[in-house]
C-alpha cells in the first residue's frame, strides 16, 4: 500500500495514537458511543461535560443553517451538560480507560463554585483517566456563573483552575469561549493559575434564523427561543483565527493547543494543526455523518504527510504560523491578473456581473458572443472573478504586473509594468522587494 505517515503525537505527556478526538458534547455522552468512536480509529475522547446537578433540557433544541442545496453549514444547539446520572458517567469514563488504555480519555468538568470544582476534579481523578478539561465556555447554561460566563472572566477562571488543581494532579486543559474579543487574556489567566493546555473554540453565541409564523428565533419552543451556541463548518474560519492567536501569543506560544470548530475532513484537521494545534476535536460532523468520518481523517492526513515527507506529526504542528503575518507586512507591490481559458468558458457572464457590480469594472462583455474580456489597466488583480467562476480551472492567476517606482498611494491611478517575474514566485514568496 501507499506510504502512510505515523500520526501519533504527544499531548501533555500522553502518546496519542492520532490527533483525532471527540469533543465533549452529545456525541461523547455514553460508554457505548465513545467505544464505538475509539473502535472506528479515534485517538481519544473528551467525555461529555458533567455537572453534579442534572440540567433540564428543552425540545426541540437544535437548528441548522443551510445554504442552497448544502446540508447544513452551521448548527445551533441548546443542550447543556450531561442529562445522565453523575455516577453513571463516572463509571463510563472509568470503564473507557480500563478497556482502552492506549486511547486518551479526558473528562470534562463544569463546577458551580470553587468547592464543587475541587470536588469534581477529585472524583474524576480517582477514575484513572488521563486528563481533565475545564469547561469555561458553554454559552447556553441556564445557571448564572457557569459556562461562557466564566470564560469571559479572568477572576472566575483563576479561582476555578486553582480549585480544580487542588482536587487533582492530572493535566488540566482550559476550554475557552470565542464569545470574547481577545481570548489570549483569559487563556493566559488559565495557564497562570495552573492549566497546562488550551482547547478552543466552544460554540459561538448565535441565532441561525427566525421563524416567520411565530416571530421568534429557531428552534421554536412553545413560541419562544434563545440565543445559543453555533458550531459546524461555518465556524471553522473563526476557530482557526483563535487558534492562530493563541499559538502566536508571546505568553502562550509553547502551550499545547487542542483545536475545535467545524472539522469534518482531514484537511480541516490539518489546518488546525498547521495553525498550532497538537490535536483536534469535533462533534457537529459526527452528528451529521457518524464516527466513521475519522477513517477518512486518518487515511487522508497520513497519506498527505507521507507525501510531503513529514516523519512525524509534531513537525507539522504550527508550520503555518511563521507565514501568518500582520496585514501591514503583506507585500503590496504587484498585482496578479486573472486569465480566462476560453476553451473552458461556458459564457455565463458571472465574472462580468461580479466584476462590474462588486469590483472594478475591469471585465468587458461582448453580448453578441457572450464573451468576457479582462481589461489589464482597470483590473486590480483582486481575483473575485476567479472565485465566482462556476467552471473548474477556467479563470486562473495569470500575468504579474508591478507598480512603477514612486507609485505609493496612487490607488486606481497607479501605473504598472511587466517585470517578467513568474507568478509562481510571487505566490510562494520567492519574490523579494527590490
Amino acid at each position, binding site marked *: 500500500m501507499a506510504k502512510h505517515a505515523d500520526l501519533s503525537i504527544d499531548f501533555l505527556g500522553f502518546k496519542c495514537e492520532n490527533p483525532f478526538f471527540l469533543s465533549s458534547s452529545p456525541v461523547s455522552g455514553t460508554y457505548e458511543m465513545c467505544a464505538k468512536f475509539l473502535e472506528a480509529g479515534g485517538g481519544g475522547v473528551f467525555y461529555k461535560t458533567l455537572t453534579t446537578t442534572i440540567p433540564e433540557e428543552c425540545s426541540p433544541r437544535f437548528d441548522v443553517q443551510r445554504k442552497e442545496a448544502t446540508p447544513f453549514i452551521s448548527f445551533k444547539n441548546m443542550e447543556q451538560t450531561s442529562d445522565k446520572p453523575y455516577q453513571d458517567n463516572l463509571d463510563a469514563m472509568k470503564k473507557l480507560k480500563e478497556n482502552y488504555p492506549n486511547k486518551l480519555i479526558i473528562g470534562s468538568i463544569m463546577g458551580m463554585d470553587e468547592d464543587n470544582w475541587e470536588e469534581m476534579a477529585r472524583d474524576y481523578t480517582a477514575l484513572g483517566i488521563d486528563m481533565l478539561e475545564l469547561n469555561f465556555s458553554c454559552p447556553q447554561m441556564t445557571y448564572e456563573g457557569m459556562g461562557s460566563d466564566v470564560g469571559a472572566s479572568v477572576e472566575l477562571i483563576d479561582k476555578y483552575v486553582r480549585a480544580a488543581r487542588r482536587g487533582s494532579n492530572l493535566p488540566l486543559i482550559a476550554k475557552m469561549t470565542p464569545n470574547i474579543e481577545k481570548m489570549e487574556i483569559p487563556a493566559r489567566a488559565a495557564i497562570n493559575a495552573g492549566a497546562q493546555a488550551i482547547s478552543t473554540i466552544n460554540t459561538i453565541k448565535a441565532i441561525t434564523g427566525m421563524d416567520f409564523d411565530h416571530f421568534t428565533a429557531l428552534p421554536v419552543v412553545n413560541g419562544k427561543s434563545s440565543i445559543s451556541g453555533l458550531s459546524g463548518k461555518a465556524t471553522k474560519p473563526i476557530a482557526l483565527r483563535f487558534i492562530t492567536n493563541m499559538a502566536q501569543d508571546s505568553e502562550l506560544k509553547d502551550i499545547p493547543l487542542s483545536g475545535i470548530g467545524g472539522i469534518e475532513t482531514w484537511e480541516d484537521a490539518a489546518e488546525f494543526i498547521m495553525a498550532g494545534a497538537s490535536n483536534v476535536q469535533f462533534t457537529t460532523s459526527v452528528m451529521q455523518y457518524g464516527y466513521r468520518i475519522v*477513517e*477518512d481523517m486518518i487515511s*487522508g492526513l497520513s*497519506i498527505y504527510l507521507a507525501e510531503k515527507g513529514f516523519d512525524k506529526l509534531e513537525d507539522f504542528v504550527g508550520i503555518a504560523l511563521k507565514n501568518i503575518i500582520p496585514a501591514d507586512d503583506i507585500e503590496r507591490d504587484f498585482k496578479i491578473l486573472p486569465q480566462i481559458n476560453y476553451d473552458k468558458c461556458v459564457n455565463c457572464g458571472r465574472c462580468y456581473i461580479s466584476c462590474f457590480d462588486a469590483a472594478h469594472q475591469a471585465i468587458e462583455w461582448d453580448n453578441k458572443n457572450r464573451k468576457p474580456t479582462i481589461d489589464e489597466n482597470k483590473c486590480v488583480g483582486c481575483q473575485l472573478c476567479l472565485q465566482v467562476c462556476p467552471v473548474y480551472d477556467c479563470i486562473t492567476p495569470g500575468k504579474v504586473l508591478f507598480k512603477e517606482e514612486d507609485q505609493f498611494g496612487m490607488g486606481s491611478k497607479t501605473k504598472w509594468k511587466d517585470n517578467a517575474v513568474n507568478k509562481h514566485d510571487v505566490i510562494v514568496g520567492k519574490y523579494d522587494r527590490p
Partner: protein
Amino acid sequence: MSNSNNVGVKEGISLKPSQGYLEETVTPFTPFLAMEEAARCLLCYNPPCSEGCPADTNPGDFIRAIRFRNFKGAAEIIRSNNILGGVCARVCPYEKTCEGACERSGIDKPIQIGRLQRYITDFEKTTGFQVLDPPPSTKEKVAMIGAGPASLSAAATLAMKGYSVTIFEEKKKAGGVLSYGIVPARLPQYVVDEEIEYVTNLGVEIKLNTKVGKDITLDEIRNQGYKAILLGAGMQISRTLDVPGLDLEGVTTAVEYLGKARSNDKDFNPGKNVVVIGGGDVALDCATTARLKDAESVTVLYRRTREEAPANRQELEYTESLGINFAFTLSPAVFEGENGKLTTIKANGTRNKSAMKLEADTVVFAIGQQPEDFSKVVEGIGLDKNNFVTSLENGKTNIPDIFVAGDIDLDSIKTVVNSVQGGKIAAKSIEEYLTKAGRKQASCSPMHPKGGK
C-alpha cells in the same frame, strides 16, 4: 466551448455527430462536478451500493472518501479491491450493480458511481499516486492461461502475496475482451494498457503470442515449475444461428468484427449496410462500432422486445441516439447473396407473422459466446457441452492444480466485474492450495537427510 449540444441521453455524454471511433463517449468529471456528485450521495448506513458491487470495490467507502476530500484514500479503496478499477468504471453494468442498489433513487436518480470511480482512477494516474507496492516474489510460480480480466485480477492478487505469476496469452495484445471485444468509445485502449501495466509492475509476466496447447503444452508449464495453473481464457467463439446462407461473404461474428475493428483500425471494413443480430451489450458495441466507422445504415435485429433486451438501458438509448435502427421481435430466416456475397437478409417475426427484408452486405452475430474446447489442452478437465469448465467451488476444478475464473467458468456471471471477482476468489483458492501443499511437503520431508553416503 458551449455545452448546448449536451443531450440528456446518457449522463455525461455530449453528443457530437462527428464523434470518432477512438474517442471516449462519456466526458470525465471535473473536480467541481465530482464533488457535486459525491455530495448528492446520501452516505447510507451499510451502503447497498457496496453490497451491489460484485468485485467488492466498495463504492460506499470511496464515495464517502471523496465527500470528505480524501481523494487518495478513495484511490486506495478502489485499487486495492479492484485492480481493473479504471476499466470497470467504464464498462460495468452499473444499473444492475452499484447504481441499481443506490438509495438516492428514492429521491431522484442514482449517484453516477461509475463516473466517480473513473474520476478517482484518472486522478490516481495524473497525480502519480502509487497505491500498491508489490512485495518481493518469494513464493511458488503460478501460470495463467489467457490475459483477460479474470487472470489479470488473479495475477495481481497473487503477486501482492509474493507469488511469481506468468500469464500465457495467445494474442499479440493482453487484455482479452478488454482489448478485443469492446468498442473504444466505451473503453479506450490506453485505459486497458495502463491497467495491464499496473499488473505487470507488480511483477506479473505476460507471455504474448503464446497459445497454450500449441506453443507450449500444459505439461511443459508444469515441468517449468509452475505449481498451480489458472484457466482464464474467456469466451473466444461466437454463437451463430443455423440460417441458410451462413457461409456467404459478409456474415461474421461479434468476436471477429469487434476484434478486427479494434486491432486493425485503419484497414477494417465496417460494411455499408450492417445488420447486427442480438440484444445485449456486445450487440450494441458491434452496432456502435459500425456507426462510428461510418457504415451507411446500421440495424440491430433482436428476437425479443426492447424491454426484454439484456443490454444496459443507457447504452441502448445512446446507441439509438447515434441513429442506429432497431427491429424487435424478429429473427433472421435466410441470408441471400450474389456471387457468394451477402446482399439481403430476410427475417421473420418471433411473435407474429411479420416479415422483413433488409438490404445488407454485412451481418454480425452477437447472440452469445462460448469458450474454445480445452479438453485436449487440459486433459481430464470437466467441461459442459458448450465447453464451459464445470468448477467445484471458489474457482477449483476436478484437477487439483488447475483453477478456473472468468467467463469460461460455467457458473460465472459473464461480465468484466464478475471476472475480476472470480479472479480474486480463484487466487485465494490457489493460495490455500499452495500453502497446504507447501505444508504437506514440509511435513513429509524428513527431519534429517536420509542415508550417510
